[in-house]
Structures are given as C-alpha cells and as structure tokens.
C-alpha cells in the first residue's frame, strides 16, 4: 500500500507522525545506559554463550574417542610435530652457517 501512495500522502503521514513524536517523554541517556548495563551484569552469570556449558549438561557435547576425532587428532598432531621438527632443523642449520661465516671472517 505504501507503493500506491502519492508523495503528498506519504509526506502527510510522516508529518502526522512527527507531530506525535515531538511530545513523547524521554529520559537522559546516562540513566538508561546505566539501567541497561545493570540489567546486563545481573544476567551475565547465566549467559551460557559467555561462560560456556559444562560437558555433563551439554546436549551438543562432542563425543570423545569417536574414530573421526581420533583421526583428526592424529592428523593434526603429526603435522604439528613435522612442522616443529622442520622449523627446528632449519634453525639449527642457520646457526651452523652463521658460526661458519663468523669463523671465515675472523
């Protein structure tokens, strides 16, 4: 219906609305923000998306020891150990090169 209204009608509607709104009671932001904050603090202890859900009460608890999880854990762990060895190895090699260069210079 808004699409069928002419511009004048839309303006008239907006004007009526503005007249009503100018006289609505308002409270200062300091008071309302404080109230909002107090409400939030009071309720935050029970907010499970902040505190997390303990495993025994969690209906979405991921199963431990499922074969998918074991494979994922192994995969992740082998990759991690490989990478850490690689970084260690390259670090050691660099140290050796530096020592060699220093000996050559002196």
């Amino acid at each position, binding site marked *: *219906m*808004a*699409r069928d*209204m*002419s*511009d*004048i009608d*839309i*303006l*008239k*509607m*907006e*004007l009526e*609305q*503005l*007249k*009503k*709104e*100018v006289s*609505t009671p*308002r*409270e*200062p*932001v*300091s*008071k*309302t*923000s*404080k*109230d*909002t*904050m107090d*409400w*939030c*603090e009071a*309720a*935050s202890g*029970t*907010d*499970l*998306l*902040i*505190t*997390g*859900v303990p*495993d025994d009460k*969690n*209906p*979405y608890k*991921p199963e431990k020891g499922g074969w998918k999880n074991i494979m994922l854990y192994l995969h*992740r762990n082998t*990759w*991690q150990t490989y*990478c*850490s060895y690689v970084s260690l190895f390259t670090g050691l090699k660099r140290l050796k090169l530096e020592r060699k260069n220093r000996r050559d210079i002196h």
Partner: protein
Amino acid sequence: MCDQTFLAITFGPCDSCSENPVGRQSRLDGRSQRATKNICSCCSPFCPFPMACQGLASGETLKSLKAESETLRKKLEEERKKLHDVELEKVAEKAEALGELNMKTRRTLKGHGNKVLCMDWCKDKRRIVSSSQDGKVIVWDAFTTNKEHAVTMPTTWVMACAYAPSGCAIACGGLDNKCSVYPLSLDKDENLAAKKKSVAMHTNYLSGCTFTNSDMQILTSSGDGTSALWDVESGQLLQSFHGHSADVLTLDLAPSETGNTFVSGGSDKKANVWDLRSGQNVQSFDTHDSDINCVKYYPSGDAFASASDDSTCRLFDLRADREVSIYSKDSIMFGAASVDFSLSGRLLFAGYNDYTINVWDVLKGTRVAILFGHENRVSSLRVSPDGTAFCSGSWDNTLRVRQEGRGVVRELKQGGTTPYLKNIFLFN
C-alpha cells in the same frame, strides 16, 4: 487519475481528479502545458472554469508540507540531543571485559536444496524450523540433526518462518503474499500440506512473521509497507499498522514482560515501534543509511538492535528515544542481514553478506570475535531460547549450530593448511 504530465507530478493531482476519478488517458492536451491551470488534460472537458490561482496552491502544499516536516524533524533532533549527555561506551568502561570467546560449530544441518532464507527455534530449545528458496520448510531436531517434518510450499522464496510457542504448529510465507500455518502432527506419514491454513493476506510478499504469546495470533510484515495482526482460527485481520513508506523487511515482538509493542524495520531506512492494541506508531528511528534487514529487541525490552545494508548494526534505546551505539568497522563493507542478542544482552551476533558472523560486545561497542564457516552469505541467525547455542542459516544451503566451546586451540574453519600452521603457535 491524472495523466503523468510534469505538472501533475510536481503539484499532485488536480482538484477535479480527486473528486471525479477518470480512467487513465494519455492525451497530452495543449491546455495542460499552461502553468496557471490546475487541471490536467483529461479533466479539462469536465471543468469549465479553470482556476488560475490554485495551480500555485497545490504546489504550495507540497512545499509547505516538506518545510513543516523539516522543522519538526529539527525540533525532534534537538529534543533528543538535549538528553544525550553521555555515551554508552563511557558508562560501560566500568563493566568487566569479556574473556576470549571460542565458538565452535557443534552441528551442521544439511538437507536443504537451495538457499536457507529464514529459521526459528522452538521453545523446547531443541527443534528448529527453516525455510529455503526452493519452497521447502524443514523441521529439524538440533541435537540429533534428524529431519522431523518437511513441507513443500507451493511458492518459492519462503522468506519467513516461525514456530508456534506451543511447538505444535509452524507458520511460513513468502512470494505467495500470504502466511500459511501448518499444524505439526506426531504421525510422520501424515501429509502436512493437507491441513494447511492460510491466515494472512497481503498485497505483496511476506517478509516476516511471528506468533504472539499464544498460538492464536500471528503478526506479519509485508513488502506492501504494512504489518498486520491476524487471528489464526478465523484468518481475520485484527489490527493493521501503516507508517512505513517502503517495504517492511523485518519485525520483532517485545519480550513478554514489557508489554504489547513490536518493532519493524523497512527499506525506507526507518525502524518504527508500534503499539499492538491501538495500531499507533509510538516511536520512529531513522539514522540508518540503507535498508534495515533485521531488528531484534534487547532481552530487557528497553532497547533494540538493527542490522542494515549500510554494513552497520545499531543499538537504539527506547526510553532515551535515540541511537546509543553503532557497531561497525571500516573493514566490514558488506551489509548485515541478521542480528540476535545472547540471553544476557552482552553479546550481539550479526550475520553478514561477506559470509562471516561478527560477535560484538554490546556495552563496549567492540568486536569480540569473527566466526567463519559458511560458504555464502549468512541470511538468518537466532539464539536458542535457553541461550546455550545459536543457529545460523546461510545461502550455502546449510544451518550451523554453534556454542561456546572449551579448549585452547581456536578453530578458524577457513579450509586449507593455514589453520593447522596457526595451531602450532597457539597450542600450549
């Protein structure tokens, strides 16, 4: 109606047209070009006495209306500014900082054949109803990921769906311009489509629907610019709400403790608060720069948040009657499609068109986390009624149920080998 000459467009319909509506004639009579006349070409045979001065009068009305509304708007702005004595962020400095959030995807609900447009939780905290572009509406059990019911609507683009408070019915609608209520039966073989009841009738697409506190009444919003309250049993219109000058895209009912109001947001960049009983527009907010895609009440009922195509989310305080916080970042360039608060109102989850979900700290105005995982834009997002998890539906045909997880390693599900490399440095 007047023909669309320049005069008719600028000065509005002439006096004769509003009194004697004539069928559309596109004759461009030479007489209509003269500025002193206020009658359009199709009216001239009916008005023997052209009134020379009234052409100016109708032009004046439009201008004077505009000027009056400008002055009122300025006055309103002044009144609101007087009470803006402190920023929410300043007040929130005393609040405790949030710890690191670690949201994990617990369930991925796959089964829709096309984009998921809307979803809703049941009050039993377990079931989810979701609707998609191909016309299918599916009821899932989020714990087991089983599909409990599936309904095929006769229309595509089912943009709104809602679960009844009792859990015994679902309502959905979209391009068919009406809202259909399906009672859910325990018998899985029963054809749900046979028991369908058409409740709402709009003249344009249905963009949002929600049950009020009972199964008996439905509130709908539509692309025709109106919202309406319907009785489910009889299909009668109980109350209609006019005030938006463009499509109404979203609505949200106030939490039950605070009373009978709801907020709606539309393509006219305005968010309006309405009184359910009287049908009056109580408050209006128009600080957004683009279409408002989603509005949600703060859990206490004194404020609401909105998500818009201008890539910001804003918090509006109802008692102070102004916007008190903007949640935006320069790096976020895509519109936000959906928002929801956590139970305490401290976290604001917002789904964006750049496939991510940003989690904002409502009080401090900062972003707490970015959640990846969806492969297309996030179209809808809802926190479960008990606040343990939240579900996001996306155009990648899936829904994801996420929770705050324990663990040191943060899972950034972007695919590829980079997450594993990052794990090395984060793992301790």
